[in-house]
């Protein structure tokens, strides 16, 4: 298969192979050292299962991470990888992706790494639209430093550093990414392998920066943070469990969720709120069915995607839209940067001759 035949425009330029690949080839010889029950295991398994399906040459895949539990990820994949420093993975990956068109570059980061210490690099990578796939493992806590609140923790979070409760409003990573001019923004959950794989495939297919927020449980320092949306009984969901909590987004389909009604579809839906300009949740009836918002991930204007992202609870998570919020095409920074170099290089076949011309340019004089 040639690169032009690839079903993944995001990976154009990355060499492919016809040889079948398997999970084992993508597994390094390093012992995985996350805590028992950590959500990271599920994501690692999904990625190791999904990468062979891309048909890329394994040596052309690079994982770059920052600091935090999830940032150990590259050590466990037998690809090229760099476990860098706190918050800086998007910056390092930007240089790598810009210098090398033939690489599939992935960033693995967490809520503290991406949104606190590395917030600046994240928003600028998104706005530039560098050809990177960013997996943001959001466990809403600092795990590696043993349990301080994070920039996605709910207000009032009692932790080691906030014995009387945290004071700051959390980020909604999807809203943040949409505000930062991102071209691909999605959310998924560690425990749903099928959805995770679907979203990661779409991210891989996207040319530009793809941000995938992955809700990921930390069984040691923030256990149960996602129980409500996972429908775990102990989370005390009123009725519908996960069905009532997760709002699945599918491009071109009306946004419906909740316990299925007689038609087999969710009994709840999302409509535009003409008063606020946002969106709101309604019980679906025969009267309002036509008003249900049809999800358009390809809309140029991110306003509606942003409005949908606001349906996410900022406090303890009882409700969250999942799926692809936004997926639009825009030229990538790295493609444009390489184009400029290619344009400027036309006619410069001999770098040595060009260098001699450069050094000898300007006003010169000769002493004999």
């Amino acid at each position, binding site marked *: 298969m040639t690169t032009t035949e690839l079903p993944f425009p995001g990976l154009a330029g990355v060499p492919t192979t016809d040889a079948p690949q398997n999970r084992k080839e993508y597994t390094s010889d390093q012992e995985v050292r996350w805590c028992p029950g950590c959500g990271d295991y599920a994501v690692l398994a999904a990625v190791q299962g999904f990468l062979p399906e891309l048909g890329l040459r394994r040596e052309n895949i690079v994982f770059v991470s920052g600091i935090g539990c999830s940032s150990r990820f590259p050590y466990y994949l037998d690809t090229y990888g760099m*476990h*860098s420093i*706190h918050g*800086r993975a998007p*910056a390092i990956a930007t240089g790598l992706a810009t210098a090398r068109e033939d690489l599939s570059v992935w960033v693995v980061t967490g809520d503290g790494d991406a949104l606190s210490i590395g917030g*600046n690099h994240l928003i600028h990578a998104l706005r530039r639209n560098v050809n990177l796939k960013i997996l943001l493992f959001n466990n809403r806590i600092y795990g590696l430093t043993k349990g301080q609140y994070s920039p996605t923790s709910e207000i009032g979070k009692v932790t080691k550093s906030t014995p009387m409760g945290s004071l700051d409003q959390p980020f909604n990573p999807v809203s943040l990414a949409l505000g930062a001019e991102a071209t691909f923004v999605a959310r998924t959950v560690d425990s749903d392998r099928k959805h995770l794989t679907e979203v990661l495939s779409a991210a891989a297919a996207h040319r530009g920066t793809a941000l995938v927020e992955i809700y990921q449980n930390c069984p040691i320092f923030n256990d149960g943070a996602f129980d409500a949306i996972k429908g775990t009984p102990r989370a005390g969901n009123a009725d519908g469990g996960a069905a009532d909590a997760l709002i699945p987004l599918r491009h071109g389909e009306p946004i419906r969720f909740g316990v299925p009604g007689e038609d087999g579809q969710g009994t709840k839906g999302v409509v535009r709120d003409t008063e606020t300009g946002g969106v709101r949740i309604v019980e679906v009836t025969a009267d309002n069915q036509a008003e249900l918002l049809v999800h358009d991930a390809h809309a140029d204007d991110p306003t509606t995607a942003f409005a949908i992202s606001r349906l996410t609870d900022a406090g303890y998570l009882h409700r969250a839209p999942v799926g692809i919020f936004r997926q639009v095409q825009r030229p990538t920074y790295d493609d444009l940067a390489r184009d400029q170099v290619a344009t400027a290089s036309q006619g410069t076949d001999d770098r*040595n001759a060009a260098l001699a011309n*450069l*050094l000898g340019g300007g006003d*010169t004089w000769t002493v004999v």
Partner: protein
Amino acid sequence: MAKQVKQLDRVIIRFAGDSGDGMQLTGDRFTQETASFGNDLSTLPNFPAEIRAPQGTLPGVSSFQVHFADHDILTPGDRPDVLVAMNPAALKANIGDLPKGATVIVDTHDFNKRNLAKAGYAEDPLETDQLDEYQLHAVDLTGMTVEAVKEFGLSRKNAARAKNMFALGLVSWMYGRPTETTISFLEKRFAKVADIRDANIAAFKAGWNFGETTEAFVVQYEIKPAPMSSGTYRNITGNLALAYGLVAGAVQADLPLFLGSYPITPASDILHELSKHKRFGVITFQAEDEIAGIGAALGASFGGALGVTTTSGPGIALKSETIGLAVMTELPLVVVDVQRGGPSTGLPTKTEQADLLQAMFGRNGESPLPIVAPQSPGDCFDAAVEAIRIAVTYRTPVMLLSDGMLANGSEPWRIPELSELPTIDPAFATEPNHQTGEGKDEFWPYVRDEATLARPWAVPGTAGLEHRIGGLEKGDGHGNISYDPANHDLMVRTRQAKVDRIADALPPLQVDDPSGRARVLVLGWGSTYGPIGAAVRRVRNAGMEVAQAHLRHLNPFPKDLGEVLKRYDAVMVPEMNLGQLSLLLRAKFLVDVVGYNQVNGMPIKAADLAEAVTGLVESTVGTDPGAASGTADRTHQEVSS
């Protein structure tokens, strides 16, 4: 009337005006004329950090000093022979630097009550006796400029703006400078605005003709071209030479160059320059901050490009953690620090050498880093190539320590032949380099070259060499995470040994000791090369013996440095800091060097330094050789100018 022509061997001219008066351009043009005439020269631009400080005030004064001669010179000069002052503030701010008898050309146009007051003059100095000791030429340059450009129909304000070209024309006449380069420069620069172009050329010619015809100027001076070794020359600033050196080094290594940078004075010109050279495969990335600049550069290096980041001291502070990552991952990276006055924001447009210890030690852990420093504007080219050679050969970040004086100063530069440049071999890894117990081939990223201790540079895309690196301690050889105490001790020592090994391939330190009998050595680094050389000449001309040496490599030092230091009874180390190289020398060699330290944002003056060197030579020679250094130290440690 017939003009008199006087021969001079050297002249120092300072152009001074308001920061909006175009003094940097004027100085630069005069420099180009002088360079093309064949004089040796050295320049010192000096300007405020504010783009337009309040007009007519002392803080708003911008100046450009050029020293040119019929012989080899080393510095922009201590005291100007000629001052061109475009307003009262420029006169007030600069007159104190002039020796008695110096020529002062003043534009009288702004010598009114308001501007005199702004400059802090209670009365007009042109009408009192306070300038009697100088050769004063009080001329209405602005008025004559406006008159000369009348035909082009410019507004009065735009017409007056050409006054810098009038002044340039006048001074060009005084010193017999060729005018073609300036006229063709103005034609190009203002090609799209015909009236401005014609007005500037007319003002420039009018200034020249004014000198030629007026009786006020009776003497024209001639400074013959300086003998220089054969070759083709151009005038070059340090930042331009440094940018060219980076391109040249990348071409020599056959690597694409990736610059990640955030704008900062006085380093931004390197970013500007490199962004023009994409045809060499140069990618310039203007990052969101200093950290992203170096991060992207390191990412590009991981991908097999030559990563470079450029900044000044405050930027280095921000980049420190990433430099540590580069030390740990052992990837090639060039970090350029164009030093300026510090600490903190300090003096952005002034020069200093106070980042040496930051470069040496400004990271957590044992984090050794090679340091290279240029000694003159043109030498920034060779220093950049050398930094790349070390970075690529030894797989290490390298700090290149330039400074504000080198960055903006200029000198004639002999354009090198490409054959004079070193070849640099990236020697990428292509094969597995280790066999497991079962005989399976593997790639180990931390196996080392026996001679250099460098690790292999295996770039993504190379099949079979997939590996992971990062900031956690690496196991010797295999490179996997290791918390083993003995391994950490070994790796810390190995990283240090690798940097120390660089000295194996360095040439011995060149010591200039003509008679071989000097008992005092003056040792410097960086931009103090010029002032030290000029001071040493003065001391020798006075009949004394003194040796001089200059360090290109600050880490590691040349292998014979300790032995050289011990050959002399006393060693003086002039620096634009409080004694940072002195500290390193004392610590490493237990030699009690004598510091000569000045931290005023300006280059050291040759005359002041000569006096201090003379004092040290006299006291050393006047004592028993065995006891020399101790007494000299007490006498001269606190010398400053």
